[in-house]
């Protein structure tokens, strides 16, 4: 019998909602409080909670460390790439209006903000997980008495 049965059941129930809330914070950030930074941290927190309850190896099967390494880079590239894309469309670096210059309700700005926030989400979530993996992998397996 696992001594952390209640913790495991409750965590399994909560983790999907935490991850879902991260995406709500991400995609609703234009209208309510929130954005890429908060969403990235919340998503990382969902995985970290999983790692705390079920062990670091189980978490590494959900999000392999190699994904984390790629995700960290991809986010920055996505943000910078948005700026480069606006260059190619004839505007300044990060001038999102170039995505839809004819729009009367700033659709270009909405697309630009959406993309860069996605990049922020990617980098922040991956960087948080990378830091957690780096520290947690060094820890010895603790027995309950060690706490």
């Amino acid at each position, binding site marked *: 019998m696992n001594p952390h049965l209640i913790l495991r059941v409750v965590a399994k129930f909560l983790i999907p909602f935490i991850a879902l809330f991260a995406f709500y*914070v991400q995609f609703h*950030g*234009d*209208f*309510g*409080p*929130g*954005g890429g*930074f*908060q969403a990235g*941290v919340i998503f*990382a927190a969902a995985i*970290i909670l999983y790692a*705390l309850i079920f062990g670091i*190896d189980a978490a*590494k*099967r959900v999000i*392999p*460390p*190699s994904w*984390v*390494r790629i995700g*960290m*880079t991809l*986010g*920055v590239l996505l*943000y910078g790439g948005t*700026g480069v894309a606006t260059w190619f469309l004839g505007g300044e*670096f*990060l001038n*999102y209006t170039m995505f839809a210059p004819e729009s009367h*309700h*700033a659709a270009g*700005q*909405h697309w*630009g*903000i959406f993309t*860069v*926030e996605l*990049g*922020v989400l990617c*980098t*922040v979530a*991956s*960087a948080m997980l*990378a*830091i*957690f*993996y*780096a*520290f*947690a*992998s*060094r*820890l*010895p*397996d*603790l027995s309950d008495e*060690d*706490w």
Partner: protein
Amino acid sequence: MFTPIFALEVGLMAMLVVVAIAVVRMRSLFAIVMLQGVYSLLSAIWFVVLDAVDVAFTEAAVGAGVSTVFMLGAMLLTDRDSKPISTQQKIVPLLIVVLAGAAMFYAIGYMPAFGDATAIVNSSVGAAYVEATKREMFLPNVVTAVLASYRGFDTFGETTVVFMAGLGILLLLGLNGHAGQWRAKPNGHNIGNTAPNAKRDDTQENSEGGSA
């Protein structure tokens, strides 16, 4: 003057001071890490009272959530209690803190009142952004518009800082925690990765080095 909000603000500030003093006085690192989480959560509530919801959100997620876990992870690699510090070593830090505190109290008189509409931040640049966001962005959340578009360069820099923080940790510790040779003795247990042929492959699943 004495409204419920005012009472709440004073209460929150008092609790912050109590938690801060408790953190300074304690020796148990586990309790200190937990109290730092409490401190962040109290700050988050206080930011909500000040109508800074985005900041409160970030403080709750980063300060109370993730950084508590990071501090726990770091703490588990050291001893459980901090070493006592002699009174002599405390004098210079105390002097610095008292001087810095006195300087801040001196500066309070020059600060605008909270929510003052005529203050520089609220009247010139802030008001211009609030007005322009409605006209140019068609977004209800001014914070997002400023963060991602008007100040997009800043946010690009911040994202790069987060990336570099992660990169720095990976360079120092390795993604699976076994970069280089290391050993530690937390809580009387010898752990480490001092074997000559230590696993250094990042894709390796099991990364608990020689926990002898």
